[in-house]
């Protein structure tokens, strides 16, 4: 509901949201949207330009670029979304446990987070690939393993602010079990924070997975992926530069849309604009923005 009201107030967010929904839908229903099978090789159409049958032309094996772009949504966007959900779920679990129970649980979990966060994400992902070999699933596993700590941190901060509020204390007094307090009373108020942090890292994860595929460490041929399509176009970048455009623009558009949307969320959910929440929440956001900047760099 809140989402809808945001959309109503911010047209730009509505555009981005619609665009992303369309992209995700196209990815899920790729077989219906794609005009050709993405792996169908036509050597005689190698590097053919745009035509009515092949709207965006053909690649180095004569495969339909448009179809590959549409099928590429699956690893580039959908699987990233899945990995993001998984790591947010783990992070939320740890964050709630740490923020609600405090004490030893908190210390233990937060030190574990410290350890996880002290490794640069890229290096750890490369290490995981080095051990398990290249492949999309391995990068996704590495993402889930590395990112949860960051989410746990932020969610914990958010939970801490509410776990001392009167209604939570009252629920505790009534003898409600911890789990149901967390689900009933804490989850709804922390959800906006979770939404902001996870949407802001969604964009950087899309970029990272495309980057790894560009290096040949991600998804393996013949599956389509945007980063890999860019890499394939790279070897002919001086003779057929136009091949870089389609996947490049796709990445730029999706990542920009995600970032604009996440900015809108952040603006809309800013505590200064919401009377029901205390001002000191601002601190939590400044942490999240700082981390976001580091993440993108």
């Amino acid at each position, binding site marked *: 509901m809140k989402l809808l009201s945001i959309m109503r107030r911010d047209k730009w967010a509505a555009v981005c949201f619609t665009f992303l929904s369309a992209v995700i839908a196209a990815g899920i229903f790729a077989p219906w949207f794609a005009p050709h099978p993405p792996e*169908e*090789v036509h050597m005689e159409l*190698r590097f053919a330009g745009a035509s009515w049958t092949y709207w965006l032309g053909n690649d180095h*094996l004569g495969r339909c670029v448009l179809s590959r772009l549409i099928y590429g949504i699956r690893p580039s966007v959908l699987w990233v979304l899945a990995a993001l959900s998984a790591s947010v779920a783990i992070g939320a679990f740890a964050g709630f446990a740490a923020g609600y129970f405090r004490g030893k649980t908190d210390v233990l979990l937060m030190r574990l987070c410290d350890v996880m966060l002290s490794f640069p994400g890229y290096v750890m992902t490369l290490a995981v690939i080095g051990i398990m070999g290249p492949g999309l699933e391995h990068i996704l596993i590495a993402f889930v393993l590395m990112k949860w700590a960051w989410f746990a941190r932020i969610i914990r901060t958010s939970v801490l602010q509410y776990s001392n509020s009167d209604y939570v204390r009252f629920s505790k007094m009534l003898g409600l079990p911890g789990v149901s307090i967390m689900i009933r009373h804490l989850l709804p108020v922390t959800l906006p924070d979770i939404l902001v942090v996870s949407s802001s890292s969604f964009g950087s994860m899309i970029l990272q997975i495309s980057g790894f595929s560009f*290096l040949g460490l991600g998804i393996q*041929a*013949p599956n389509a992926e945007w980063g890999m399509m860019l890499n*394939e176009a790279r070897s002919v970048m001086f003779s057929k530069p136009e091949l870089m455009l389609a996947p490049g623009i796709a990445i730029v558009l999706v990542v*920009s849309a995600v970032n604009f949307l996440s900015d809108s969320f952040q603006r809309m959910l800013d505590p200064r604009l919401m009377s029901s929440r205390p001002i000191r929440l601002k601190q939590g956001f400044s942490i999240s923005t700082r981390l976001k900047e580091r993440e993108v760099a």
Partner: protein
Amino acid sequence: MTKKTIYLLTLAALAIMLLAACSANSTNSGGATFNGSYSPQNASSSGADPAGSAANESTHPAAQELTYATAKDINDINPHLYAGSIPATGMVFESLVENTKDGIKPLLAESWDISPDGKSYTFHLRKGVTFHDGAPFNAEAVKKNIEAVQANAAKHAWIKLSAKIAAIHALDEHTVQLDLTEAYYPALLELAMTRPYAFISPNDFKNGGTRDGVTGYNGTGPYRLVEHKTDQYAVFEANESYWGEAPHLSKITAKVLPAGETTLLALKKGEVNFIFTDDRGADSIDVQAMNQLAEDQNYQIVRSQAMNTKIIAANSSKSDSPVAEKAVREALWQSIDRETISMDIFSGTELPAESLFSSNVNYADIGLGKREYNPEAAIRLLEEAGWKSDSRSGIRSKNGRALSVKLYYDAASPSQKTQAEFIQSTAKTAGIGLELVGEESSSLAKRRATGDYELLFNQTWGLAYDPQSTISAFTAESSYLHTTKGIHQADELYGKINEVMVSKDEQSRQALYREILTIVHDEAVFIPLTNGIVTIIAPKDLKHISFKQTQYELPFEKMGFQ
């Protein structure tokens, strides 16, 4: 509103620029992570370093200087070990004899006699030859060098000669006698190789030998190494006191650059002015981009005759893999459309190959049966072997095991990736599922040596090494032992290989090679693709560009600007 539009447009432009910058950088960082040998200094503009200034001068024809791009550092060019870059080793060091198009020719040995039993070789050395450090090249130096190589015999097991040298005697100042334990016909061919039987000044020996490294690189060759900055560049200058015709090019610089587009850009800018198929150098550049460069700028493209055969090696000894089965290998052979690979992927520069060695290789013109591209025949073979098709996945299976095989290719070679993807698509129509794995070339070499692969892109070693060395390598673990071990006549094959190497007369040799080549052809363990060539991109006014009998070296000493 307009303000916002401008803002967005600027943002979009910035994003595109950032993306472009990222892509160039990520190529480098990939190299850095996996080679371990790449240093970031390479990427810096080369205005200040000597190689850079050399490059700028060398675009000027009168300078007689050449700068070539190499993907890997020249490394330790000790000719008695294998770490160094072969073209660089070949410029600095020489062997007793040379393998040319017309057979074995004199190099450091002016002439030689072979005893009637084929067990003793007497070499009459060239007089007046000195190493770069002034030390005389004489019988004593030859003896010391060969003994230094033999002291490290295990390292040279791939060269059968290393196991057959019994003794070496310096008869007088310019005569040496090499005694073998038994007659070995490829002895001169193996002595002609760039390594290990090449000569380095005995003054450079460390601990009386070369196995622990050397203190300098003084050979007898036309060029001497004057400067080497690891992972940046190496400078070679002409050897003024060279015994042969003085080289025209006074200075050659090997500059380390990541293969592919970086090299192409460096050529465009004149940072380098020469590249060749070394570590995929010219191979990793798109043929069209290369032609465009030659058209627009002052460059020429020179291509050699067919040098080797590009193959897919099937690991017959991996018994849990479908490729251990002959029918699968044959079916794969027949589901590769070599004509299309040759015409569309290589733009006709490389011709289709139908057997492990093309007919211009010695002893290989024996008319082996062709296995043409024929998907129906492949399907028939698989059906007969009991691989039943599964209509759902399209991949055949037998006894619950899917016909899915891993094919390893060099991730730095776009042409290999394209071929792999193309083969994958045609093999799928026959029901063979290929899983493509792109890896670093050193990791591929390791897989070949340990047998941890199913199918692997590879190539034969070139005219100077084919067929004898490549065939010897069937028995060497570091090369093709795993490829050949699983075929059922393997012991017979290895027996014949040992026999052919010591055979004394031409006729039995021909017969044995015929049998050996027929066995590996019938078993389809080496699936040929195309005949590889060496491609050179050089300044238009560079004359006398020629090739050696191997894809690993070039006769730089013959080239020169007019």
